[in-house]
């Protein structure tokens, strides 16, 4: 990282470090030094190595063999690459906004002063605490078409429910439902953010006679934009890498008929089931680039809507 020794080449380097700005910059590097050290020691090398493996044929056992762009050419012709990317994009487009909206609403609900609120908050957080095997087994029961509770509920309204996880049409929505249900992590991030908003701001607004909705739109949401920005960026990074939910629900196969074959299951399958680590690395490199471009776009656009977002060039 050239960034750690940035301006030494400029003629005014010595002067710079003595200036107020220079001292601030020095503080910056000192503050991030522990993380940077960890990054250089443990993270950077393996990431570069794994990306480089994308240009090799590597079965973990025999030494990696350089094959240039072969993996990427194979990838273009590989229908499962397209299917898994398509499934993942579908899930990202649905689960990220849904998860954000639902978590935000629940956080608003849990940000009141009500007797027993500690218990309520804990309750809403439970799906993200319970081990994936337990909640997956539960969902398999809930979504069982004949006697599962979900279709039983729909039946009350005379709707014949679908076969959910066994249906190629409904399998992805089933998974998205589970993801949204278990997005307690996002919920508590919002809750922490809401708590950071001074009560007095609301009270000032109340005195002005602003309605609940107006307060939400003009006070709460603007002040929450840094948090919302965080959940958006992380939602995209995390959901593109959705894995364990799908893995446990579909017994690792991404079925039925590859309808829930998400990108990381395909990476995993290539890496540790088919032992095609080179190909898995090539897939990962593509994923990396996709997420990177989306994140850069997010960061670039942040200045337009995120309150107090620092300028990003």
């Amino acid at each position, binding site marked *: *990282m*050239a*960034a750690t020794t940035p301006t030494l080449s400029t003629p005014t380097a010595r002067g710079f470090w003595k200036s107020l700005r220079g001292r*601030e*910059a020095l503080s*910056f590097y000192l*503050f991030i030094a*522990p*993380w940077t050290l*960890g*990054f250089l020691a443990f993270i950077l090398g*393996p*990431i570069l190595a*794994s990306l480089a493996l994308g240009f090799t044929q590597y079965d973990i056992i025999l030494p990696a063999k350089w094959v240039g762009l072969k993996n990427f050419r194979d990838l273009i012709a590989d229908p499962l690459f397209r299917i898994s990317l398509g499934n993942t994009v579908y899930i990202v487009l649905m689960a990220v906004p849904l998860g954000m909206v639902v978590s935000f609403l629940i956080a608003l*609900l849990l940000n009141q*002063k009500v007797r027993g609120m500690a218990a309520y*908050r*804990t309750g809403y*957080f439970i799906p993200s*605490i319970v*081990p994936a*095997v*337990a*909640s997956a*087994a*539960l969902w398999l029961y809930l979504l069982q078409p004949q006697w599962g509770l979900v279709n039983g509920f729909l039946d009350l309204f005379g709707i014949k429910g679908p076969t959910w996880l066994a249906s190629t049409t409904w399998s992805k929505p089933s998974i998205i439902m589970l993801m949204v249900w278990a997005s*307690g*992590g996002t919920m*508590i991030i919002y*809750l*922490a*953010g809401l*708590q*950071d*908003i*001074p*009560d*007095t*701001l609301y*009270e000032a607004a109340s005195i002005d006679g602003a309605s609940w909705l107006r307060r939400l739109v003009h006070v709460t949401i603007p*002040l929450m934009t*840094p*948090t919302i*920005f*965080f959940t958006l960026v992380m939602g995209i*990074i995390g959901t593109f890498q959705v894995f364990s939910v799908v893995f446990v629900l579909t017994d690792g196969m991404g079925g039925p008929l590859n309808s829930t074959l998400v990108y*990381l299951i395909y*990476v*995993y399958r290539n*890496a540790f089931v088919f032992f095609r*680590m080179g190909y898995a690395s090539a897939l*990962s490199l593509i*994923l*990396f680039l996709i997420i990177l471009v989306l*994140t850069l776009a997010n*960061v670039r656009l942040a200045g337009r809507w995120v*309150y*107090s977002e*620092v*300028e990003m060039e």
Partner: protein
Amino acid sequence: MATDTRVQPAPAVAAAQPRPLRRRSGLMAVFRHVILLPGVVFFVIPLVFMVSTSLKALRQIALFPPELIPNPVLWANYPEVFHYAPMHLYFVNTLFLVLPAIFGAVFTSSLAAYAFARLRAPGKNAIFIVLLSTMMVPAFVTMIPTYILFAKLRWVGGFKPLVIPYLMGSAFFVFLLRQFFLTIPRELEDAAFIDGSSRLRTFTGIVLPLAKPVLATVTIFAFMASWNEYMGPLIYLSNKKQYVLSLGLQVFTDAYGGEWGLLMAASTMMVAPVILLFFFAQKHFVTGITMSGLKG
């Protein structure tokens, strides 16, 4: 640093206004419970399901449709877990992973987060993007290079690979904390800084106390992540004396495990501390700026 002027953070207003008495009509309270209760039931089902299964015999677990009420109720599943997996020993080992992870999240990550939120320096934005990009490469492909690295350091077979990297903070927490630090009014720090307080003292004395809600959040996340971490302990630990909880549970899911009642009993025991931690940590979500900052 360009501050957006569309929204005025209003610490000054906040300090000036006396806090009106909060009136809550009984009806309103009931209404809130009516909304909150049904929702919470839906979210608590997995816990109920887990506890119910943990009290069942295998012959009842095999039934479907499943029955909610265990019959007979096998309380004996709980003590039996310890016969298969000494959870109390694994608990102590797990703390060896959890505590450094919390330290890394709360201290190391927040230091870096503060720098990214407040301090100006050449190359900062590029470094920030690099930080974010460490989260974009799937762990499956970095696993082997990372393992080889630790093997060369001769750290494999012990806790070091599961502790030291976590002490150095993580991108997720740096990013999360940075977003929260951005919302803290600058004026508070500037005043202290101008008074001659050092950056570090401003940070520990003013910023960290203001950030309690998010630090509570980060603590919970760090705790949960290392509490449940499975793959790392599986590949790095090679001695059952070092086993952590997640690895201990494997005895119930091995090819010849299949003891679902015991697995669920063990999972319930594993989840209980997390629930308790959350229950007690959540009250820190209410100590925001107004109380700990300006009034304190």
